[in-house]
Structure formats: structure tokens, C-alpha cells
């Protein structure tokens, strides 16, 4: 279970971007969150990934209440969630080759010995050839880079995957390939998915159920 209860979040003490949002995902469930741009979807996704501390509200991850965010979150909780962002160009360290980009979470958590084995499985799953793995981010296209970012999110085998507008910058065939890779991973591991986006046709087809932003910020709280 991933439960976000009555979340209010904003930046630097300003007006909150997200007000009283409540969202519950059952284990293994895939949920699409729809909303117009600028409504606060991404902020909520970052709260759910334990990357942004909300002003008020609680997050419960698999029964454990979350007490710290970012570096203060226990590593077990942080790495239980994988996140893919909208813009691959900004979410990849420009100096790292794609191999290192994908392997970085394994290095950071002291699991160097698994790198070779994980890469050999993940690279074909997301559609990256050995030639591409050897390049740096500025030498590949946005779509290829987003494939690497997805692989990086999956490399620690998270129980939850958060895709924040993952396919918004990509062409239809790459988008379909990435969604396919996510579904393959979920079928193999039973991981849950929170897909955030504004394209209801994609999310309706991709996810078990979809909710609209307006429904999670007001209606459920009133009820």
C-alpha cells in the first residue's frame, strides 16, 4: 500500500501548490493520475517518491509511516520507490556514460558486484544496445536517454514505480516501448505504479484505474 493522506505541499513557505490531496494505491496496482499542467501533479509525485517534504499530511509506505524526506528518509524506504521524470536531459548527470548512469544506484547502495548481471538484463529490456550504453547523455537522443533513466529507476528493483509524465517528451513508438518495458517489469515483480500525466487516452489504456486531480484534492477529503 502507498497512501498519501491529506497532503499539502509548496515551495519555500509560499502558497501551497498541492492542497489536501489524498491518494491510495493498493499493492501491485497501477493508478493513472490525470490533471492539467501546472496543477501540482509533479509536486505530489515528488512527495510520493519521498523527494519533497510536504507542509502537512502523512505518507504511509507498505504500512510504515514516512518520517523523513530526501536524505532523511531511510534508504530502505527511498529505494523502494523508483521515479522517472519528464525531461531525460535534466534527469541525467551529463558526465556519466549511460552504463554508469544506470549502475549509479547500485554503486550508491554498495552493490557493485551486481552491476554486470543487472545491466545485461535491463539494457535489452528497455531497448538499449551496448553501443549506446558506452555513450554520454549528449551523444544520445531524448528517447534513448529516457530509456536509460527508466533502467536506472528499475535497477534496484523498486516495489513502487512513479512515472511523472514519463512519455510526454517522446514520440509514439518510443512511448509505447517504454510503457511496454514498465509493464513487463511489473508483470515480473508485481510492483505498483503511479503514472502521472495529462494524456487520458494513454493513462486509460495503461493503468488499472485513473483518477482526476480534482477528485483527489477535494472530493475524497470532503467524504
Amino acid at each position, binding site marked *: 500500500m502507498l497512501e498519501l493522506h491529506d497532503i499539502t505541499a509548496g515551495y519555500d513557505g509560499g502558497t501551497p501548490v498541492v492542497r489536501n490531496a489524498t491518494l491510495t494505491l493498493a499493492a501491485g496496482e497501477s493508478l493513472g493520475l490525470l490533471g492539467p499542467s501546472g496543477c501540482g501533479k509533479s509536486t505530489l509525485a*515528488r512527495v510520493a517518491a519521498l523527494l519533497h517534504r510536504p507542509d502537512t499530511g502523512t505518507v504511509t509506505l507498505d504500512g510504515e509511516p514516512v518520517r523523513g524526506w530526501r536524505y532523511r528518509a531511510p*534508504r530502505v524506504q*527511498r529505494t523502494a520507490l523508483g521515479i522517472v521524470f519528464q525531461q531525460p536531459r535534466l534527469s541525467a*548527470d*551529463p558526465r556519466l556514460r549511460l552504463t554508469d548512469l544506470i549502475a549509479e544506484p547500485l554503486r550508491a547502495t554498495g552493490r557493485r558486484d551486481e552491476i554486470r548481471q543487472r545491466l545485461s538484463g535491463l539494457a535489452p529490456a528497455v531497448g538499449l544496445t551496448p553501443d549506446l550504453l558506452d555513450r*554520454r547523455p549528449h551523444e544520445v537522443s531524448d528517447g534513448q536517454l529516457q530509456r536509460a533513466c527508466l533502467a*536506472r529507476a528499475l535497477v*534496484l528493483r523498486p516495489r513502487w514505480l512513479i512515472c511523472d509524465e514519463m512519455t510526454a517528451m517522446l514520440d509514439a513508438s518510443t512511448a509505447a516501448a517504454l510503457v511496454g518495458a514498465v509493464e513487463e517489469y511489473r508483470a515480473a515483480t508485481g510492483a505498483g505504479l503511479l503514472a502521472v500525466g495529462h494524456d487520458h487516452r494513454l493513462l486509460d489504456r495503461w493503468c488499472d484505474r485513473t483518477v482526476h486531480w480534482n477528485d483527489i484534492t477535494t472530493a475524497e477529503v470532503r467524504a
Partner: protein
Amino acid sequence: MTCEAPQGTVWRSYGTDRRSTRTVRVRVSAALVAVTVLAVLLVPPLVQLDQQAVDLQAKLLPPSWAHPFGTDDLGRDLLLRCVYGLRVSLLVGVAAALAATLIGTAVGAAAGALGGWAERGLMRLVDTLSSVPHLLLGIFIVAMFRPGVWPVVVSVALTHWLSTARIVRAEVLSLRARPFIDAAVSGGASRWRVAIRHLLPGVLPQAALAAVLMVPHAMWHESALSFLGLGLPTHLASLGNLIQGARGSLLAGQWWPTLFPGLLIIVPTLAIAGLAGAWRERINPRRRSELML
């Protein structure tokens, strides 16, 4: 003609078979830096001439085969004096720039990465020190020691880390807000690992560039302090001392005692800057489309 090297060099930052203008610039810069360093390292031990040998018969001779850079007002050979001067000035410039960059990077990175009261405290310290004219502060520091090379280095380093600290802090703040830092945090990286693996390498090119640009500045400070009698003793040649000493002869129409030391400040500096620029592109490659934004 229409599709020249740029696309190739930006797309594939290394390993293109075409020789772009950038490659030529890098090679020329590298050659000049190599010549400078070799001259400074090899000429004094190999030539074994006394840079302070006075010959009043031969004072203020224009450049000739015997004295390629001419002689100064005490008949000392200017080529030899210039090489020794370049040695001292480069030592002061590089040592001071390195020390200042180390201090500035440490303070700036700590301020940017820690945030909160630590950041506010450190940056107010930087503001306070910046409000004192740095030549004045440098004179205070250098006056506490005997004249020599190292007090000048310390004085320049302690007064010049402030701008580097500001640059590095700003760069860390901008990097810290990028999604790839979020991705690293989500991947289980500790605060320390993010700083060492992602933030510091990201600011190094900026810090290195600041260091290179500080080399000539440090050389000028050395000459200013020497001129005020607080830097190097006048019998020791430094490029600053040489230029200051030649001011009188310039007004009398003798251009060589000023021109050659001046060139020796400008040329190595440009060469080092050329190499630093290429290094920045290598370490932090950007696509051309991003550069145009």
C-alpha cells in the same frame, strides 16, 4: 563549406577525424604552455648564467643577437631576467590561484550543499570580507611577514577566494535543483555521495576556469605589492618587478624592457585559458542546441 566541423565536434566531443578550429586552438595553446613550462624549468639550470650580472657598458641595448630581448638600465640581459621573472610570477600566480580556488570551492560548496544557517553564516562572512578593498587587505597580510614569495602567495590567496566561493555556491545551488540530483537521492545516494559524485564534478570546470582567470590577476597583485616595496625584493626578477622597473625607460623611448615582460604575461595566460575552455567542454559537454538557448 556549409557544414563545417562544429556539428561533428559537438555531437561527438572527441575522436572526430576532422581537424576543427577548436583542435588547432587547443594544440597551439598546449604547445605554448609546454614551451613556457619547459623554458621556466630548464633554462635556469642549463644556462648557468647569473641573472643579476651587471654590465654598465651594455646598458639599455636594443634587441640584438647577443641580447635577443635587449638589456636593462643596469646592462642585465633581459631574456634571462624575463625567464627568471616568468618563473617567479608563474609560481606566485599558480600557487595563489590554486590556494584561493581550494578555499573558495570548499567554502562555496559547503554553503551551497548544506544550506540553512551554515550557508547564511558563510556567505555573510564572504560579504564582509568583500567590503574591504582587497589590495588593502593584502597589504596588511603581507606586511606581517618578511618580503619573499610565500607571503605574497598567502596574501593573494586569502584575498581572492571570495569570488570563487560565490561562483561555486551559485553553481551548486543550480545543480542541486536538477532532477538528476532527485534521481540520485531516490537511488539511495547519501548526502556525501551526491556532493562528491554529482555536485563537485559539476562545479569543477567553473572553479578551474576561475582559477585560470585568477593566475594573471595574482601576477598583477604580485607586481603591485612589489611596486609598493612589500612584495619581492627588487633584485629578484619577477615580471611585475621588470615592468615596474622599466617605466622610466619607456618614457625615454626604450620599448623593449616593457614589451617583452608584458608579452610573457599575456601569452601564457591566453594559452592556459584556451586549454581550460577545451577542458570544460570535455568534462561538461553540452549539445549545441542547448548552448544556443
